[in-house]
C-alpha cells in the first residue's frame, strides 16, 4: 500500500488548515454560503436532507486496518455510528456537523486520509480494480498509476473549476471490474506488440442523465507519458466543455458534440504543446510508488486446498471467494448486503471487525468495490474458515456476491436532496423475496440489480442487468424499469422497458422478469443478461406488462 512521505503529509496538513480557515470564515459570516459552498464541496461536504453529508476519499478503494478503524471512530464520534460505502469506492457519513468538521479532518489526517476533491467540479477520487495486485489476470498492479494520478490531480491549479466533475478509473486486466468505459477517462494498462506498457485511453463515458459508453481517444500512450496526456484531455475539456447548461457540462457531451475524431485531434494538438514541458513524473518516481505496491510477504508453500466440510462455509467460498494469483491464497469479498440491511452500510463495530481481520489475515489491506462491498485481497486459504466464522459473527458473511440480493442502491430520498424517490426500500423489498433461500438465488445466478433515486444515476441503474430509476409522478414516488445494462468489459447501457410503476408495482415487475428469465434461459448457466441479449426486450416486456 502507498504510505505518505513528509511531502504528502505536509500537503494534506496544509489542506486541512486551509479548510479549517474557510470553515472559520464561514462560521464568522466573513463569507457567504454561496461562496462557501464550492469550498465545502471541494472537501466532500454536502448539505443533505437531514444534516451535512461527508464523503471521505478512499484512493482507488484501498485502505489499511488502521484507516478502517479510523473510519469507525469517525462514525462513532461525529456521526450516528455507521457509514455508507459508495459505488465510487468512497465512504459517506450522513450526520456531520460543520462545527465539528475541523476536528474530524484532523483525525482523518492522522491516518493519511482526507475528503479533498470528493465533490465539486474537479478531478475526483481515482477508482480502480478491487482485485488489483491479487488478480491472476492483470499485467501489473494498476494502483501505482492511480496514485500517480492522485498526486497529479490533487489541487491541480488549472483544473479545480472545471465545467463539471471529472472521474477517472484505471485497470490492468481485460476483465473490467471498475467500469472504466463509464468514466470521464478510463485507462486500461496493457503491453503492446513491442512489449512496452502503456494505456488504452477511453474518454467520455458516464451515466447520469445522458448515459454514454466511453470511446477510445488513444489506443496506446506509454506509461511514462500518461500524465501529460491526461493534462491535455483536461485542458481541452476545461477550455471547451459546455458551461451554459449543467446537464450538458460533462466531457461526454463535448466528445459527442465534437465527434471523437475532432476531439482526438484537439487533444493531440494540445498534447504536442504540453508534452515538451516535462509534466510527467520521472522514472524514479514511478519506481518509488510501484515499490510501495509490491506483493506482501506471501508464505511460500502455503497449502493450496480449503477444507469445505462445513456446508455454510462452502456456500460462502463458492460465492464470495475468488482465485488469487499466489498459490495458497484467495481473495474474499465481504458482502455489505445482509438480510434486511441497507446496501453499502456498515456500523462502526463492523468496521472494527473488518479492520482486525484485515490485520490478522489479509496483510492489512481492505478494498472497497464499486458494488458497495469490501474485499480482503490476500488471505491464506488455511485461514479462510476462521476468518469466515468471525465475519459471520458480525453479520458480514452473506454468501450473495453478484446474486439477486447483491443490489446496488444509492441513498435515494431517505437521505439525498436531489432524489425523486426512495431507493433503499426498493432494494430491501426485492431482496426480501429471495434472501431466505441462497439456493434459489444461486439458481437465478449472476444478476445485477441497480437502483438510483434520480436521473443522476449514483446507483448505476444504467449499468444494471435490471436497472431501477426513481422518478417523480405528480408528487408521488414512481419507478422506471430498465434492462440490459453492464458496467463490465462488455459494457452496455440499460434501456427502458415500458411504463413506470409505483413501489409495489416495481417489486412485482422484477419478480415477473426473474420468473420469465428462469423459464426462458437456454441453460442454467445462461445469465439473465445473456438471455436478455439473446431474446431482446420484447418477451421480457410481455412478461411484465401483459
Amino acid at each position, binding site marked *: 500500500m502507498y504510505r505518505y512521505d513528509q511531502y504528502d503529509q505536509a500537503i494534506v496538513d496544509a489542506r486541512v488548515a486551509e479548510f479549517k480557515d474557510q470553515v472559520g470564515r464561514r462560521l464568522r459570516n466573513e463569507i457567504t454560503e454561496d461562496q462557501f459552498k464550492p469550498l465545502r464541496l471541494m472537501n466532500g461536504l454536502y448539505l443533505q436532507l437531514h444534516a451535512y453529508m461527508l464523503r471521505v476519499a478512499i484512493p482507488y478503494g484501498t485502505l489499511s486496518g488502521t484507516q478502517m478503524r479510523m473510519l469507525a471512530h469517525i462514525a462513532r464520534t461525529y456521526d450516528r455510528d455507521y457509514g455508507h460505502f459508495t459505488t465510487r469506492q468512497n465512504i459517506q457519513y450522513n450526520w456531520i456537523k460543520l462545527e465539528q468538521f475541523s476536528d474530524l479532518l484532523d483525525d482523518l489526517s492522522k491516518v493519511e486520509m482526507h475528503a479533498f476533491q470528493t465533490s465539486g467540479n474537479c478531478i475526483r477520487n481515482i477508482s480502480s480494480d478491487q482485485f488489483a495486485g491479487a488478480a491472476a489476470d492483470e499485467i501489473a498492479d494498476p494502483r501505482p498509476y492511480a496514485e500517480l494520478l492522485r498526486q497529479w490531480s490533487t489541487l*491541480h491549479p488549472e483544473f479545480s473549476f472545471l465545467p463539471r466533475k471529472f472521474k477517472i478509473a484505471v485497470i490492468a486486466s481485460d476483465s473490467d471490474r471498475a467500469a472504466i468505459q463509464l468514466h470521464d477517462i478510463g485507462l486500461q494498462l496493457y503491453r503492446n506488440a513491442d512489449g512496452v506498457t502503456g494505456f488504452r485511453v477511453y474518454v467520455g463515458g458516464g451515466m447520469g442523465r445522458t448515459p454514454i459508453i466511453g470511446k477510445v481517444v488513444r489506443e496506446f500512450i506509454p506509461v511514462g507519458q500518461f500524465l501529460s496526456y491526461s493534462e491535455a484531455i483536461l485542458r481541452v475539456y*476545461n477550455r471547451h466543455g459546455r458551461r451554459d447548461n449543467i446537464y450538458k457540462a460533462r466531457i461526454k457531451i463535448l466528445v459527442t458534440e465534437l465527434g471523437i475524431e475532432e476531439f482526438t485531434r484537439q487533444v493531440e494538438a494540445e498534447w504536442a504543446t504540453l508534452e515538451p514541458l516535462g509534466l*510527467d513524473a520521472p522514472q524514479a518516481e514511478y519506481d518509488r510508488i510501484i515499490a510501495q505496491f509490491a506483493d506482501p510477504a506471501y508464505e511460500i508453500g502455503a497449502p493450496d486446498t480449503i477444507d469445505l466440510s462445513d456446508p455454510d462455509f462452502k456456500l460462502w467460498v463458492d460465492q464470495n471467494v475468488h482465485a488469487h494469483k499466489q498459490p495458497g491464497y484467495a481473495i474474499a469479498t465481504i458482502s455489505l448486503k445482509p438480510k434486511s440491511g441497507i446496501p453499502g452500510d456498515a456500523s462502526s463495530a463492523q468496521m472494527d471487525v473488518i479492520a482486525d481481520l484485515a490485520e490478522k489475515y489479509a496483510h492489512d489491506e481492505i478494498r472497497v468495490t464499486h458494488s458497495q462491498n469490501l474485499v480482503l485481497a490476500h488471505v491464506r486459504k488455511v485461514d479462510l474458515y476462521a476468518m469466515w466464522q468471525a465475519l459471520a459473527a458480525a453479520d458480514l458473511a452473506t454468501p450473495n456476491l453478484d446474486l439477486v440480493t447483491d443490489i446496488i442502491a444509492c441513498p435515494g430520498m431517505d437521505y439525498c436532496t436531489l432524489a425523486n424517490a426512495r431507493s433503499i426500500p426498493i432494494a430491501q423489498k426485492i431482496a426480501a423475496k429471495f434472501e431466505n433461500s441462497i439456493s434459489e438465488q444461486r439458481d437465478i445466478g449472476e444478476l445485477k440489480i441497480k437502483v438510483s433515486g434520480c436521473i443522476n444515476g449514483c446507483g448505476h441503474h444504467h449499468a444494471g442487468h435490471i436497472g431501477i430509476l426513481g422518478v417523480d409522478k405528480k408528487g408521488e414516488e414512481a419507478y422506471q424499469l430498465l434492462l440490459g445494462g453492464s458496467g463490465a468489459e462488455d459494457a452496455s447501457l440499460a434501456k427502458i422497458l415500458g411504463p413506470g410503476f409505483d413501489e409495489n408495482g416495481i417489486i412485482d415487475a422484477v419478480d415477473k422478469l426473474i420468473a420469465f428469465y428462469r423459464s426462458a434461459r437456454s441453460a442454467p448457466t445462461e445469465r439473465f443478461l445473456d438471455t436478455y441479449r439473446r431474446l431482446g426486450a420484447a418477451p421480457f416486456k410481455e412478461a411484465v406488462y401483459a
Partner: protein
Amino acid sequence: MRDNQDQIAVSGAPSPALDDTPARLRFRDDAPFESPIAPLADFLAGGNFAAVRIEPGEDARELVPHFDRLKLVEIAFPKFRDGRGYSSAAVLRQAGFTGEIRAAGDVLVDQIGFMRRVGFDSFAPNKPLDPKVVKATLDRYPYVYMKAADGKVPVWALRHG
C-alpha cells in the same frame, strides 16, 4: 523517461509584495502599466494597444503572434465558478508570455493560490481582498504535486533530487 525541462517561471517576488490599493494586488517588480485595455476583437483588428482583455469563451492562443507588443493581458472572471481563465493564463505562460496577466472580476481569495500557479501575477477583484488572508493563503502550501507556470518544483523532483 525524458528529461524534465523547467517551464517558464514568472518573474517577480515569490511572496506577496502588495501595492497600496487594497482592490489591486500585483506581484511584479516592473512599474504598473495603465493604458486602455482593448477587447480581443479590437486588439486583433490591429489597433495600437498594449493591453487586451480576454473573456472566458475567447481563445488566448490568438495572442501568441502578438506578444512583442503586449504588456498586459486581463483575463475576465465574470463568475468565479467559470474556470476557463485558468487555462487561458496557462496557455499564455506556456507560449512564453512574460508580461502581466491580471485576473479581473469575481476573484475570491480562495482562488488566488491556484491563479498564481497558472501564471496570474496581478488581481483586480470586484470586492477587495483582505491582505492578511491573501498572505496566509499564498503561504499555505509548502509543496506542490505538479508543475505549473509558477516554476515551483513538484514533489516528485524534490523526492529524487
